């Protein structure tokens, strides 16, 4: 590799810039969430925790009443809705996605290739198209928009993500183990319960976690099918951003950042260790 000495050094500099591009904007939010300047968020004016106090509804010196009176309550409501939707939608889609994955991998039937292709459809469809299709559907069938419509909407695309993760896990699995179980006299339910399920469980859990994270983060589809009093956290923040940029958003964003980085790191770390 002597030949590329100069190029190599250039690439290293480039690599540094590449990661700076990815992480600098995120770091910026965290740093400026502690900025005491209420007028211009981007000019450093000392350290403060006031924005964090404000979002949790504690009295703070710098409030300048930027958040509306009800905001803390609305924020909590949005967080609760997000968690509730993500919990229900990811559980349901984990069951459904896993069921389809097992059927496609272990059974022979005529519509198999249809199911396989069909599972990719929600992924290639732009969010906005699915969002408005669901909106038209709920409105024209007279279903009132609420957290339940959001749960249903999320399931329609989360099933695909679970399907793909679980299918990959099944593909890695040794089919002989199931045959051995059958040879030893287990019936198909016993084989499934004692052999297949424990083996694909990491994939099922991984798919479920992924679905949970994607559901928590979904903005576009939720934006169209959320009822008036069923906002989720991303939709709430989107609304705040459209009304104007306030320093409190930095603090909310930082908390979300820490939360998602901790969850994702833990997930990825566990997966790496299992291998």
């Amino acid at each position, binding site marked *: 590799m002597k030949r590329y000495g100069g190029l190599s050094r250039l690439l290293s500099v480039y690599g540094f810039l590449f990661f700076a591009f990815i992480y600098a904007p995120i770091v910026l939010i965290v740093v400026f969430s502690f900025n005491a300047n209420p007028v*211009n968020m981007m000019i450093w004016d000392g350290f403060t925790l006031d924005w964090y106090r404000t979002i949790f509804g504690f009295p703070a010196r710098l409030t300048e009443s930027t958040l509306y009176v009800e905001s803390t309550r609305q924020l909590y409501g949005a967080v609760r809705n997000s968690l509730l939707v993500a919990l229900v939608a990811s559980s349901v889609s984990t069951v459904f996605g896993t069921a389809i994955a097992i*059927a496609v991998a272990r059974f022979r039937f005529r519509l198999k290739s249809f199911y396989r292709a069909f599972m990719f459809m929600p992924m290639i469809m732009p969010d*906005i198209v699915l969002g*408005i299709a669901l909106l038209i559907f709920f409105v024209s069938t007279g279903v009132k928009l609420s957290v339940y419509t959001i749960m249903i*909407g999320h399931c329609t695309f989360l099933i695909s993500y679970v399907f793909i993760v679980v299918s990959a896990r099944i593909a890695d699995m040794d089919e002989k183990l199931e045959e051995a179980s059958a040879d030893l006299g287990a019936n198909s339910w016993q084989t499934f319960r004692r052999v297949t399920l424990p083996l694909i469980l990491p994939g099922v859990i991984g798919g479920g976690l992924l679905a949970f994270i994607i559901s928590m983060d979904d903005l576009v589809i939720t934006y169209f099918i959320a009822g008036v009093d069923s906002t989720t956290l991303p939709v709430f923040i989107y609304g705040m951003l459209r009304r104007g*940029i306030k320093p409190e958003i930095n603090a909310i964003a930082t908390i*979300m950042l820490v939360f998602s980085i901790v969850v994702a*790191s833990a997930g990825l770390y566990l997966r790496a260790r299992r291998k």
Partner: protein
Amino acid sequence: MIGRGTAKGRRAAALVGLLGAPTLFLGIFFLGPLAIMFTYSWLEPGLYGGVVWNFYHLNYGRIFGWANTRYEQFDPAYLQIFARSVWLALCTVGLSLAICYPAAFWISRQPERRKNFFIFLITLPFFVSLIVRLFAWVLLLRPTGFINQALMALGIIDQPLEMIFTGFAVVVGMVYIFIPFMFLPLYASVEKLDMAMVEASFDLGAGRWQTFRRVILPMTLPGIVGGSIIVFIPSLGNFIVPSLLGGAKVLMIGNLIEQQFLSARNWPFGAALSMVVMATILVSLLLYVRQMTREERVTATPLNRQEA
């Protein structure tokens, strides 16, 4: 699947048990909405929102040019917005490719442990909330944002640059959120690249450019095309990025669709626009699949001969 009739029957029952509920669910809540949307796109818009159940092709006529009545007129603005969306999506693909390609080479040549850590670092932002990542760019690009403040403090400019609410801002925002999408398929190809081939090309007297053009580029093409299509699809129909970073000035097709539903209240027209976006994406996917199969046919023969 050798067995008696009852075993076969039990397997069929198990299959129905597995597929029944999910099929019913997706049939009602996924295919149902799509079918209704398709139907709506061929219906007449009602006066105050809603639809009138008459066959009506002018929703498409307004986009493609044959609508010419008192109420519905062809407006080239729609095709312009559509063309702009395609253009911005292509810019996003080009820029993210240009950013990720050298990075993929750099990372593929790191020691194993560091390699895995770097890939982890690139995947991590995918799990960070989309709205948070875009908010960061609002803070960076605003007239009173970080970049302008920094440049003014350094005395490079004395008036804030207009960066937000431009096509540039939209492309940067989309590149930023889609970097993992481009990087991972690209890296998979670059990682597989056999450096011995590159060495061989140099030894046989090819220059840097020739080696790149004749050896490196063709061998990493699957990753390039794969990454491009994965970035192109969500960019084309994007609606959040242009609404936060493009403002009212840089409208994309996604924003136009949103307007039809939330402010103009012309649902059939919005449905027709969505169908056009879907059709574009399906066509580009079809082209991709055809290209890939042809690619395989072309490259498969000489490689097989080499191995034989």
